[in-house]
């Protein structure tokens, strides 16, 4: 396949950045999108041009590092896949492909297609955990959890923190990401104890990072590689409103 790539190039955080056009040829339809980017970069290195910086790690859809807004959609045209799982057979010979970084005030561009997603880490640090005292390992099955609850909590736990939800949302909102963690922990007995403060603190941090509000467009869930559902956002809203009404916390 021969392709025209329009790629966002930006030297550093302060650079304005712009789209650059490159040609790649002899791309196999069996290559993953990232392998195609590797081919582009080898070619750029030979031409003495700085290669395109992009995030990636596992290349098997589990780490959430690969980002890239491809042809107007996070992770490209396929549903429920990350960019590393996207194959070139999803494109046609002669196509022009635009490749941009995630766009959000809370995800500043570091270089080219690499964005700083530590705002997500700070949301998790604000309450996306269960506090435990160290000590002996609890016995297996000591806390009974119905299978249906465990399954639902697991579905929420499959979020890989990639940020496609933010990238897809017209408001650059992080509600799907934040709600997945709030919902996962609120469903399980271990997480229930801290459910109220967690909802309050994580939402406050999400707002402090400058992510937008939710308009319930559903773009996040439609583009999420792990198909995290909108039910998580509804659950977060319930948790948050009831926490606000009932918690003793007057300074949040």
């Amino acid at each position, binding site marked *: 396949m021969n392709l025209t790539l*329009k790629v*966002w190039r930006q030297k550093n955080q302060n650079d304005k950045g712009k*789209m650059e056009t490159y040609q790649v040829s002899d791309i196999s339809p069996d290559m993953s999108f990232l392998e195609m980017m590797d081919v582009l970069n080898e070619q750029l290195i030979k031409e003495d041009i700085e290669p395109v910086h992009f995030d990636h790690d596992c290349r098997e859809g589990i780490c959430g590092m690969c980002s890239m*807004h491809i*042809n*107007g*959609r996070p992770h490209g*045209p396929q549903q429920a896949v990350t960019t590393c799982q996207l194959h070139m057979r999803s494109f046609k010979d002669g196509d022009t492909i*635009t490749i*941009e970084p995630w*766009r*959000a*005030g*809370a995800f500043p*561009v570091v270089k080219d297609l690499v964005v700083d997603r530590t705002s997500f880490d700070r949301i998790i640090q604000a309450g996306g955990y269960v506090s435990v005292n160290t000590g002996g390992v609890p016995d297996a099955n000591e806390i009974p959890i119905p299978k249906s609850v465990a399954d639902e909590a697991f579905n929420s736990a499959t979020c890989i923190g990639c940020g496609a939800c933010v990238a*897809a949302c*017209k*408001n*650059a*909102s992080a*509600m799907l990401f934040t709600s997945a963690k709030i919902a996962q922990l609120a469903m399980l007995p271990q997480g229930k104890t801290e459910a109220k403060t967690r909802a309050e603190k994580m*939402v*406050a941090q*999400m*707002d402090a990072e*400058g*992510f*937008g*509000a*939710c*308009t*319930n*467009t*559903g*773009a996040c869930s*439609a*583009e999420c590689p792990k198909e995290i559902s*909108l*039910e998580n*956002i*509804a*659950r*977060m*809203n*319930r948790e*948050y*409103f009831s926490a*606000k009404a009932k918690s003793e*916390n*007057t*300074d*949040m």
Partner: protein
Amino acid sequence: MSWFVRTFGSTLGRKLLMALTGIFLILFLVVHLAGNLQLLIPDGGKSFNIYAETMGNNTFIQIVSKVNFALILLHIIVAIILTRYNSKARPVSYENFNGNANSTWSSRNMGVLGSVIFIFIAIHLSNFWWVFKYGEVPTTTLENGTAVKNYYAVVNEGFSQLWIVGIYVLSMVFLAFHLAHGFQSAFQTLGLNHKKYTPAIKAVGKWFAILVPIGFAIIPIYMYFNNIS
């Protein structure tokens, strides 16, 4: 700042205000439509005049009407705050953004749809509400001898002009799209997303968004053709 102010200043708190005021406005639309459909009764406006007169003299209705104005205003103010806040969350926009691939057009353009509805509300109030309250309205005598303002005549006069009919019908299209997203969205905001109930909410929302605007649009169309025949 108190926790209360901070809660309603948060993204979720503002959304809660949108949803609650939105649902109130939806209920208002039902009542407003039920009342206005009396304009279609072929009795020379008698039923409508009695209805309008009763509503105007009823203290409870007058209080609800003030609350309604306040909540529309709140809906609009929070809408402006949210829309501006949300557009700031993405300071650099995409060269290529394919929203149609993952969301409906109306869900992405609630601000545009709402603004058109706002302009319509302003036109609508100045056409009728303002005239009823402060303008010169001819009087008519009911069968029991009491003289009342002939509200029907004012409406009938308005809807004999094609351009006014056009504005009303077109505005209802915008209302339909606002409701098509807004109705079900409000329940999601309130945290009501459930395998049993959400499909029903979505179905009711869809039909509400179709039937209510049609109901409103029929009135000017009917009166226009009634006048020329």
